[in-house]
């Protein structure tokens, strides 16, 4: 039963394999090796290659590259912001979403443009195809099918901090090693992963795929001495569409006019009228009964590993909030798929009970299951052991991204993947690492939260995590990130850069045109009456309809962003003062208490900002530390990627 293959893997990708396995495979030396072909791995590989690094992507199965392992959707509130930012830095997932989307909607439309959540239901097949063909056409990128057995490490470069240096990998088949300057690990749930269904447990990271990474786990834990934790997640059963009585569910229509994720796209591949609906239904008391009756048959929920509070299984939902109706979304899996994805019904009970549970829901009373739901438990590396460039502090050239860092979600993985790929590429090309500020992007918030605070449960992005939410909007991600992404980071192509610059200049011009007209409010009222901005006769303003829209948003938020600018500046200045990771805090010749020394020695904060947030640090300790760093010039002035 556990060996059941996911239906989405059956497509033919042989051509893809062969086209990449020609001369390249004789090569045994790369700038960057990316391990894993999920959302983090594909973004990492593409970003490193865009930067100019010779890149090798190693994945267990080439045909699962770009597979959506869980829900067939992208974006949402907070997550949509991440997609827009990944796109602004020329990542893949935004354009892939535009190509694969079959149901687009902007969530939170009534709540202000800063918290709008662009979201789409996806066609799994189209998404996979897009990602694969995109990687295929990326220069300097080679894809190899294989399982990594071992991470090769050697003595560190003495001029840089760290105890080890990564030198490449060795594959399971025992062939000779493949060498590289940096390695990005994006192993998702495969690090010591176990699958759970009912009382059955088997090793693996995704149903239908080989288990893996035993050797990798060993290297990370034993050789590099990294602290790991354990988390869990799960996925719902897939339901045969025909067996569902959709007349008993509530139809949820998409937006009439789809909004693309990507700043490059003006429309989506799916035409407005071709979009598919979703359906909403609810759990019943019968569902709760089945859950209660099956608890003793359910290993997964009896385990200690931490699951997400916000994406819990139906079991933990009804156990934590009994006596309530819970929402269940029935989502299309694609244009040609005969399956529905029941969002909200992730479960790990035995398959026969899964079926009983489903059938307690009126619309699903005759439902048939194609593949049952299951749970996964996996190791993650405590992300406080990483620098803001996502490199493992102790190991030069080793980068981690995605679920291995304790996050959940495609978008969170893609965001980290992109940034890890950027820094892996920069390291290989002997460029200094870069950090993204939390004042400038959700990606910065994500990484800062991870490396600064660590995780206790799978980390998901929410808009409430971003203190400068009114500035970090989905509408201005291109202006925030694209120009510098080209000018300083090097991960943005010229085409996108030119587009962003022309938008920026155009908006600037339009704003100046608006500002040049100054009238008293009474006069404005006289003149305008009820005429809205879009009907303004200004040629600049009318040049592009979407610009008026962007200008409107900009002007609404500008006063608030200005008010926050001081706070932003303060955070940025704290972030930009990095503390050398090899500082010997225990014998630093400054007046620090033993307690403070021990805290600093244990945590080794990346920046002064992180040090101030440590519990137990004293204000005087910070001042002394700062004074020492300034006086001795020991601060590595991080090449912070910041826009101001």
């Amino acid at each position: 039963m556990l060996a059941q293959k996911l239906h989405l893997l059956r497509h033919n990708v042989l051509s893809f394999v062969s086209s990449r396995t020609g001369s390249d495979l004789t090569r045994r030396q790369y700038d960057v090796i990316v391990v894993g072909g999920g959302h983090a791995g594909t973004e990492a590989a593409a970003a490193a290659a865009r930067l100019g690094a010779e890149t090798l992507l190693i994945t267990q199965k080439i045909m699962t590259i770009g597979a959506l392992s869980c829900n067939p959707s992208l974006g949402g509130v907070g997550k949509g912001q991440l997609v827009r930012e990944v796109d602004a830095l020329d990542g893949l997932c935004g354009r892939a979403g535009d190509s694969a989307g079959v149901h687009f909607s902007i969530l939170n439309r009534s709540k202000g443009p800063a918290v709008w959540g662009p979201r789409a239901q996806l066609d799994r097949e189209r998404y996979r195809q897009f990602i694969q063909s995109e990687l295929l056409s990326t220069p300097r990128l080679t894809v190899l099918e294989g399982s990594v057995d071992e991470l090769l490490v050697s003595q560190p470069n003495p001029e840089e901090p760290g105890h080890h240096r990564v030198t490449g990998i060795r594959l399971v088949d025992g062939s000779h090693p493949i060498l590289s300057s940096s390695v990005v690990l994006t192993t998702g749930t495969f690090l010591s992963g176990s699958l759970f269904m009912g009382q059955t447990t088997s090793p693996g990271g995704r149903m239908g795929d080989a288990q893996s990474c035993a050797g990798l786990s060993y290297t990370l834990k034993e050789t590099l001495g990294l602290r790991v934790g354990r988390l869990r997640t799960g996925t719902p059963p897939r339901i045969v569409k025909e067996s569902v009585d959709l007349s008993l569910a509530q139809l949820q229509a998409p937006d009439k006019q789809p909004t693309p994720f990507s700043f490059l796209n003006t429309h989506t591949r799916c035409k407005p009228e071709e979009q598919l609906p979703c359906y909403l239904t609810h759990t019943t008391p019968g569902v709760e009964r089945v859950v209660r009756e099956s608890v003793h048959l359910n290993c997964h929920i009896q385990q200690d590993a931490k699951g997400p509070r916000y994406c819990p299984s139906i079991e933990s939902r009804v156990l934590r909030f009994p006596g309530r109706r819970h929402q269940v979304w029935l989502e299309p899996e694609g244009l040609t798929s005969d399956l529905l994805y029941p969002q909200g019904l992730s479960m790990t009970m035995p398959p026969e009970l899964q079926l009983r549970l489903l059938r307690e829901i009126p619309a699903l009373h005759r439902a048939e299951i194609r593949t049952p739901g299951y749970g996964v438990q996996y190791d993650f590396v405590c992300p406080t052991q990483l620098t803001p460039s996502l490199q493992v502090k102790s190991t030069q050239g080793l980068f981690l991204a995605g679920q291995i860092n304790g996050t959940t979600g495609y978008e969170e993985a893609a965001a980290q993947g992109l940034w890890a790929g950027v820094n892996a590429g920069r390291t290989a090309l002997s460029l200094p690492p870069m950090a993204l500020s939390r004042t400038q992007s959700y990606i910065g918030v994500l990484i800062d939260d991870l490396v600064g605070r660590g995780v206790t449960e799978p980390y998901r992005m929410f808009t409430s995590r971003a203190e400068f939410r009114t500035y970090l909007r989905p509408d201005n991600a291109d202006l925030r990130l694209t120009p510098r992404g080209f000018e300083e980071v090097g991960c943005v192509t010229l085409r996108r850069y030119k587009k962003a610059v022309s938008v920026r200049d155009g908006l600037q011009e339009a704003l100046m045109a608006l500002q040049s007209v100054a009238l008293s409010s009474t006069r404005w009222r006289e003149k305008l009456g009820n005429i809205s901005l879009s009907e303004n006769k200004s040629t600049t303003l009318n040049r592009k309809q979407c610009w008026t829209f962007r200008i409107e948003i900009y002007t609404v938020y500008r006063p608030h962003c200005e008010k926050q600018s001081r706070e932003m500046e303060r955070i940025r200045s704290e972030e930009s003062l990095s503390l050398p990771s090899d500082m010997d805090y225990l014998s630093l010749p400054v007046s620090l208490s033993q307690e403070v020394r021990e805290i600093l020695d244990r945590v080794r904060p990346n920046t002064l900002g992180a040090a101030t947030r440590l519990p137990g640090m004293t204000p005087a300790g910070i001042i002394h530390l700062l004074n020492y760093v300034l006086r001795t010039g020991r601060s590595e002035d991080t090449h912070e990627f910041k826009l101001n």
Partner: protein
Amino acid sequence: MLPCSWGLWRSAIHTLKTFSRASPSARGLCIPTRAVCDAETIFALSSGHGRCGVAVVRVSGPASSMVLRNMAGLTQALPPPRTALLRRITDPQSKELLDRGLVLWFKGPHSFTGEDSAEFHIHGGPAVITAVLQALGSLEGVRPAEAGEFTRRAFHAGKLGLTEVEGLGDLIHAETEAQRRQALRQMDGELGRLYQDWSYRLKRCLAHVEAFIDFSEDELIEDGVLNQVDSSVRQLETEIERHLKDERRGERLRTGVQVVIAGATNAGKSSLLNTLCQRPAAIVSPIAGTTRDIVETSLDIGGFPVLLSDTAGLRDSSDSVEREGVRRARQRVEQADLTLVVVDSTQLPPDPQLVAAFLQEHLSTVLPSPEAGMTAASDRVLLVLNKSDLVPEEQRERTEGELRERPGLPPACFLSCSTSTGLEDFLTVLQSRVKTLCGDPLSGAPSLTQARHRAHLQQSVQALNQYHQYRDQDLALAAEGVRLALTHLGRITGRVGAEEILDIIFRDFCIGK
């Protein structure tokens, strides 16, 4: 870590950091271009507390000239820099006369902080000082200074060398400690509970708005949640506004150094209180455990205001009332600026060589643990060896000799409350201690604290207005208002982080997408 110290610490870093590198210039669209480098204008009472003829209030920052114009009625030109000018000082809103005093104008960079600065030399009474501080706080863009902020700005402007930073670190340490005591004091009282309650309710409001923003599209979070928030916010606004008005009318300054008398039962603590205030404020009896609650009295010691408290004798008791008294006594000791530990000298070991160890041991039972920031050697403790008339003269002298300049032990004074022997000497020691404490501008600065509270509460109310203003147009901006209000309140009660808000969301709602 204590709430107040966070802001302090952060701004210190900011200052030091910006010292090391120039502020980056603004560029790009949608990026705030102004205000990045604009420091806020701050004010503080720069002279010490206690009774004094003249108090100096200092103002620093870009709005200093505006402050001077508004408060000193200077409609035309500013006075020549660094020249004293006698002016009527008025409330900028009500135009009410607050005082007549000297004003000085310092044009940056020729000032202590390097910024535009102004000084008000006013009369030293608490009422005048409070009125002037409150008037300053009511001006837009002007706020009470964080502890040590003037020094930090001076550092920022390059007026202090890097070598002086060590001193700055120590200063901040001392200030944090003073703030810790002050915050404990405030948070203990009714006011503290009130602020905590507001903070809690505001946190819930924010959590519910955030839940609505982040989850309402997919979860069962009904619009009703927002309606509840509407009424909670309105209720909070009303309460805070009422509080602000009340405070202005009926406020009584509880100024002064907090001196607490503590010790074992029947050591003569109440007798000491009565001796010091020269009237029977506390009931004195030979029965151990007579004093059960705190007895407070205001005193003037050497011209400095002192709030003297007598506490219940510390012992394990089966009487629940007495146990409560002991609990309060311990709490009061923790909040004290100065603790007088009273010991019955007839209980001292007859061998003078053993006395030091005995007292050391005794202190550890009376004083809170060292983690609380107080050690026996601290200059915030005095030992009073009472009932000296009952100890043989010769033993007393030898003991005194033994205890003199004993490291690790606070100064000890023999005293007899019944015969007043040794009172003069004790008063001299006490007075010098109080004087030292008053020289520390933070040890008892309730008017400054109140001005700070008022400023934060006012800003909190303003921010809540933003919630209503944007509630129906833009929920992100409305939430920003609640968040801002909570930040201001958090400056009084402690910082609230994003995780805390998420905890409330996940407790109150079933988020299950």
